């Protein structure tokens, strides 16, 4: 995939506060990249710099190989969708969508045609003459989407566009946007703090923390192979267990836990023997049984609590050294508190993370 957008050593200060620090990121043409992170991690600031609303303190932003630092927003040709919709309240839905086309001096007949097509695309054809205030939140966001796409911008930027919608609508819109992305071959940069949204929609996810990218990769990579403790904890739920590396063999390491047990685990980065590390084990990868079995890693534990949550059974386990949470499929048998069990998982289902 050809690189289309490049952030080259971007730093942004607000007064003495550094919100983006020496950041490098490349985005391919037609790619859907999510910037995921907690609030204040710099993801929105990066998007605002790409849109031209903010200027980087240092570093360059390249679009298709050309630096666009000094280019004002209205000449950047990027469609922006905001969480607050940001529709023009004094214009009808049709006029809102026509606005970017009027700015480009397109003929009246063609504007009418393209507005109609855009309204069809978001299934709002019957609402062209309504005011935005007469529409529901979901409808307003679809108008904003149509307005940002109708002029066929080079890049579409979305700043938590689904944050104000309720859960069901949000999940529907996630699929709608993903579908539009595939059908129209758009390049989309999508800011969100919702990890499941990022995993659902993106080709790649960049996980932000304190103005830096902790990890960038496909949804599967950031979930299954977290590179840092922050990524492991921020995306999904995980068990973090402290231990010390005993030996390293290729892509695996043997880690000794405080309880004295040994765990063989896949590596996320380079570690040396003797190094204190964390093990990240996803709860749904842990199997429980009353017999030892033949898995690579087996821990003898006691059930302290067990909660039925409809789609899964959540079991809390304890040994002298460390607690562990297991999520079992709904077909699992019950594990009442006090049961002695063996918790088993393969080497590939856990990761060694340097602290």
């Amino acid at each position, binding site marked *: 995939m050809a690189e289309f957008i490049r952030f080259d050593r971007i730093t942004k200060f607000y007064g003495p506060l550094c919100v983006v620090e020496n950041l490098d990121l490349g985005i391919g043409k037609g790619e859907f990249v999510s910037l995921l992170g907690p609030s204040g991690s710099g993801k929105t600031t990066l998007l605002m710099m790409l849109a031209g609303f903010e200027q980087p303190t240092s570093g360059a932003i390249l679009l298709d190989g050309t630096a666009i630092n000094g280019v004002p*927003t209205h000449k950047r040709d990027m469609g922006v969708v*905001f969480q*607050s919709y940001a529709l023009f*309240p004094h214009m009808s839905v049709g006029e809102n969508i026509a606005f*970017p086309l009027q*700015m480009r001096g397109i003929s009246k007949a063609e504007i009418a045609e393209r507005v109609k097509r855009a309204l069809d695309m978001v299934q709002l054809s019957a609402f062209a003459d309504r005011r935005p205030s007469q529409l529901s939140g979901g409808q307003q966001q679809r108008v904003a989407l149509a307005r940002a796409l109708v002029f066929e911008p080079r890049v579409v930027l979305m700043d938590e566009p689904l944050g104000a919608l309720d859960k069901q609508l949000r999940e529907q819109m996630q699929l709608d946007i993903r579908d539009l992305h595939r059908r129209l071959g758009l390049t989309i940069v999508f800011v969100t703090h919702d990890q499941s949204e990022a995993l659902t929609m993106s080709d790649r996810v960049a996980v932000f923390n304190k103005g830096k990218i902790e990890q960038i990769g496909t949804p599967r990579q950031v979930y299954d192979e977290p590179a840092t403790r922050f990524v492991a904890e921020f995306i999904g739920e995980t068990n973090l267990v402290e231990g010390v590396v005993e030996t390293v063999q290729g892509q695996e390491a043997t880690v000794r836990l405080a309880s004295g047990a040994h765990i063989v685990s896949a590596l996320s980065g380079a570690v040396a023997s003797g190094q204190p590390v964390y093990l990240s084990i996803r709860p749904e990868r842990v199997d429980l049984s009353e017999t030892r079995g033949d898995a690579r890693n087996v821990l003898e534990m006691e059930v302290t609590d067990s909660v039925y949550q409809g789609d899964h059974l959540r079991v809390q386990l304890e040994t002298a050294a460390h607690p562990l949470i297991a999520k079992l499929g709904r077909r699992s048998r019950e594990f009442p508190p006090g049961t002695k069990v063996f918790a088993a998982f393969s080497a590939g289902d856990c990761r060694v993370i340097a602290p």
Partner: protein
Amino acid sequence: MPMKLAKFTFASLAILFLVAPLIAILPLAFTSSVILTYPIPSWSLRWFEELFTADAWRRAIINSLIVGSGTTLLATVLGTAASLGLRNRLLLFRGSVRTLFLLPMVVPAVVLGVGMQVLLARFGLTNSYAGVIIAHTVVAVPFVVVSVTGALAGIDERVELAAQSLGASPATVFCRVTLPLAMPGVLSGAVLAFATSLDEVVLTLFVAGPNQRTLARQMFSSIRENISPAIAAAAFLFIAATILVGLAVMVFRSMLAKRR
């Protein structure tokens, strides 16, 4: 129940206290008598006729309209520009600058009047329409600033950012988005500026010459010279105009509210 009655009585008395002067003067506008006093012998419109035919009164009305229009135009442009400038968050001492713009509201008009007379004399603008308009503009601008600032505060900044991203230059964003959205505030500011100019007396006394006698100024002087019911008729005009102004402001405010 007695509490309710007490509240009702108090409210009625408070309202009576506020409108009593109006009740006292307004019926006299329709008297046929030649002096401004009760009882009213019979009803007549002769004092309205006097108002529009007697030279001094006619001139005063025309002067009020000239000065009022000039003030409205100048104050609305300056006040709107000031409000736009005050939006900039990076402005140093923004709060202090805003207070400065509102100062003419609280500074005693006498003080402003003296200062204005000294200043206008230096530029040779005393006894001129321009001088009166400038003086009125000083006291009218704060009303525009308050009104427009309120309207601008209600605009979601992202709407303007969105317009930029859709290809609108800063000038286009202003004409197509910011100004239309702030327009109810601008209009109600303009109406308030006109009303301020209409009933301004103190500054007018200091800076206007005999040729710029406004309606308010004419009423002030004629009540000392001859107590003719023409004053009551003029007062009636004033009240009617003020009610119209009030209605206009209410309409603009509700337009603004509907936008949200």
